[in-house]
């Protein structure tokens, strides 16, 4: 593959798509698929054939269109109509309406804030391209960044670009990506740089309950992740990459496998990529249902075939990682942003977002909110804009109570902070974390003690068992929370719970244990009166707990 050949593929693909009058995109991401969107696609294909419309109307399956609550979704291009809750029986009507007015009963309101308040970078191709065809990715400018990097930039220049963009890790902690890359570049071990084996790993072990950003990206635009990884590998001097993906995501795994095969065949992965001396191979590794494997040292232990136990850092994987070699680990969304940063320049990216949190962030909006689904927004947007403007507010006339971010390592933000900006620092100040992007909205029917207990049950069950504060401390905290929700606790128990939070946070070995008290601490900070009501009045204000 050369740059010219790449451009030719893209142009051919674009020309072919412009020849047809109508393009129908049926969402085949997991949300819509579970509502039989594949049957909708099949029905549309059948009807198009029967009507002999093959030359003027193309239909294809695409990745996530975002508004999962309205699925199955069908987007009609180029006129921009989107149909919701489509069933296979409605294929005929949709085709009838192609040259007429859109079907009023199925069409989503045009210009919904859900769509036009978003800024799409990592999701730009989601719902636009067929994720199982590399040509479509290339037609959208895919692999051009890799070609550019290999032909025009030195590895140091690539790291420089990423550093200047201000990109921070999207897995949760927000570590500066450029800094991480340069640490791997510098890691030489005992040998000279040329002979050091290095690895690049994509962490797709999306374990936070209520988070499905990574899954959606892998299902909707897998090549983007591969391209991001290849650029990273070139920058840090790695020739082998691994994608560690949850076994619970069969569709993502299937599409990744297809993408890797296509990319190898096209010569954008493999040996001598774009006629340069750069080689890069990618292998998939399936997780097996252990939340702790999202922690990078546990993830490495799992790729090596062992129990997913974290080990003490330092040494960090950047110096001593997979098989003891320098290893770069980034999250799916981080890699997904890299090709765009290279294509558009680091300044373009740094202009989006806030001073310390650059670019966009994808959130999985779920829970007590009208528009559940996947959204990508610029950093610095307020929680209110996400939940009320984009999310459409709370359904059934209920009142907003709190929004949970960061999953079991995060916390709940109450309504007085709805106008706070979403960035790494602000969320940390509020007692939660950016996390990987799960955003669960809760209304007045949620009991915050019960929510804290739910997350503690999660941490307890997911504790690997290696260190005692997490292994036993989470059980102790869970038992105390259960006691509170059953109306059997005293204020002394509450004091004991707080003491355990401090102990587990400060003495656990890895991030899972250290962050396990967060949901308790944040609900205690903002909803202490609910704890006290359970203990002193033997009442659950939300009516959830049976006392």
């Amino acid at each position, binding site marked *: 593959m050369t740059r010219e050949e790449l451009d030719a593929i893209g142009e051919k693909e674009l020309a072919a798509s412009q020849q047809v009058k109508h393009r129908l995109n049926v969402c085949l991401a997991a949300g819509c698929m579970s509502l039989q969107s594949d049957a909708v696609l099949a029905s549309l294909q059948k009807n198009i054939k029967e009507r002999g419309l093959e030359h003027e109307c193309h239909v294809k399956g695409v990745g996530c269109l975002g508004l999962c609550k309205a699925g199955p979704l069908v987007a009609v291009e180029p006129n921009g109509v989107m149909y919701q809750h489509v069933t296979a029986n409605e294929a005929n009507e949709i085709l009838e309406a192609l040259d007429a007015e859109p079907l009023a009963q199925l069409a989503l309101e045009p210009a919904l804030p859900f769509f036009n308040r978003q800024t799409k970078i990592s999701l730009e191709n989601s719902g636009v391209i067929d994720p199982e065809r590399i040509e479509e990715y290339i037609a959208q400018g895919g692999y051009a960044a890799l070609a550019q990097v290999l032909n025009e930039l030195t590895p140091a220049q690539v790291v420089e670009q990423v550093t200047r963009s201000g990109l921070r890790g999207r897995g949760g902690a927000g570590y500066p990506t450029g800094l991480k890359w340069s640490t791997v570049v510098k890691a030489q071990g005992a040998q000279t740089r040329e002979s050091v084996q290095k690895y690049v790993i994509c962490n797709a072990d999306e374990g936070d309950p209520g988070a499905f950003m990574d899954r959606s990206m892998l299902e909707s635009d897998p090549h983007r992740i591969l391209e991001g990884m290849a650029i990273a590998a070139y920058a840090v001097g790695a020739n082998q990459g691994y994608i560690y993906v949850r076994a619970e995501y069969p569709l993502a795994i299937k599409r990744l496998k297809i993408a890797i095969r296509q990319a190898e065949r096209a010569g954008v992965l493999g040996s001598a990529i774009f006629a340069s001396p750069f080689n890069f191979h990618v292998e998939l590794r399936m997780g097996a249902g252990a939340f702790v494997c999202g922690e990078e040292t546990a993830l490495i232990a799992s790729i090596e075939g062992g129990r997913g136990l974290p*080990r003490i850092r330092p040494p960090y994987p950047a110096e001593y990682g997979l098989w003891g070699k320098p290893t770069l680990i980034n999250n799916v969304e981080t890699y997904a942003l890299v090709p765009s940063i290279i294509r558009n320049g680091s300044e373009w990216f740094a202009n989006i977002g806030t001073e310390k949190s650059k670019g966009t962030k994808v959130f999985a909006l779920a829970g007590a909110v009208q528009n559940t689904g996947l959204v990508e927004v610029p950093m610095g947007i307020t929680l209110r804009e996400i939940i009320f403007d984009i999310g459409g507010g709370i359904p059934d006339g209920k009142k907003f109570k709190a929004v949970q971010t960061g999953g079991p390592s995060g916390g709940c933000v109450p309504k007085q902070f709805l106008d706070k900006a979403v960035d790494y620092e602000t969320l940390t100040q509020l007692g939660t974390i950016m996390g990987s992007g799960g955003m669960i909205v809760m209304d007045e029917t949620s009991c915050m003690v019960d929510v804290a207990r739910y997350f503690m049950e999660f941490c307890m069950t997911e504790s690997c*068992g*290696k260190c*005692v*504060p997490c*292994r*036993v401390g*989470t059980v102790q905290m869970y038992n105390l929370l259960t006691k509170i929700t059953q109306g059997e606790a005293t204020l002394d128990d509450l004091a004991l719970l707080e003491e355990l939070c401090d102990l587990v946070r*400060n*003495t656990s070995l890895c991030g899972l244990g250290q962050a396990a008290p967060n949901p308790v601490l944040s609900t205690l900070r903002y909803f202490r009166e609910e704890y006290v009501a359970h203990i002193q009045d033997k009442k659950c204000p939300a009516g959830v707990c049976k006392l």
Partner: protein
Amino acid sequence: MNPQAQVTTLKIDDREISAHADQTILDVAIENGIEIPTLCHLEGLSEVGACRLCLVEIQGTPKLQPACVTRVREGMEVVTHSERLQKYRRFILELFFTERNHICSVCVANGNCELQDMATTLGMDHVHYPYLYPNVPVDASHDLFGLDQNRCILCTRCVRVCAEIEGAHTWDVRGHGIDSRVFTDFNEPWGESVTCTSCGKCVNVCPTGALFKKGKSVGEMSRKIDFLPYLKKMREEMK
């Protein structure tokens, strides 16, 4: 440069100390007669940093660091015995005691138990967390030794000595979280293990009475661990 040749100076508990750059804080502390409590650490075995008792404060580092794996650095200032550390250590120790059913009065290792000694050292006179009272079994199927899960603290010394020194890897940990248990082979009774050489190393390194020699009654158990550094050195020579 060979790190052994590099000499580093650091402060431990306000004492100026010089050390080699490849040493851990724990190594240096032991050399200088400064006691840092440990349970999972054992000279001659790899470090896992799991018991968290050796956590120390390092100036300029917000998080507590385990002395057993943290390397010394030039100018490092380490505090090994602050009030906060002592409190955490006592609480951690209490968690160990609540996790299983540690009843010293009926234990073969009574008087010869590192967990018991630790309670004395740290001044743990009572446990203020609720006991979990798990229902865990005793395995007496082996001719010479026994395993009492009630007394196991999951330090994994047995797992490490068997894999790293004996080379049999008979032991490992199954399950995860609070359900973690040491076990042999495919989880059949220890006496039926095909890989066990009955060498007794695991019994000798066990800090409590979880692994014991049969035929001993309360408080009669004694151990020998001096073989470890020697064997480790000899194994390295052979390579």
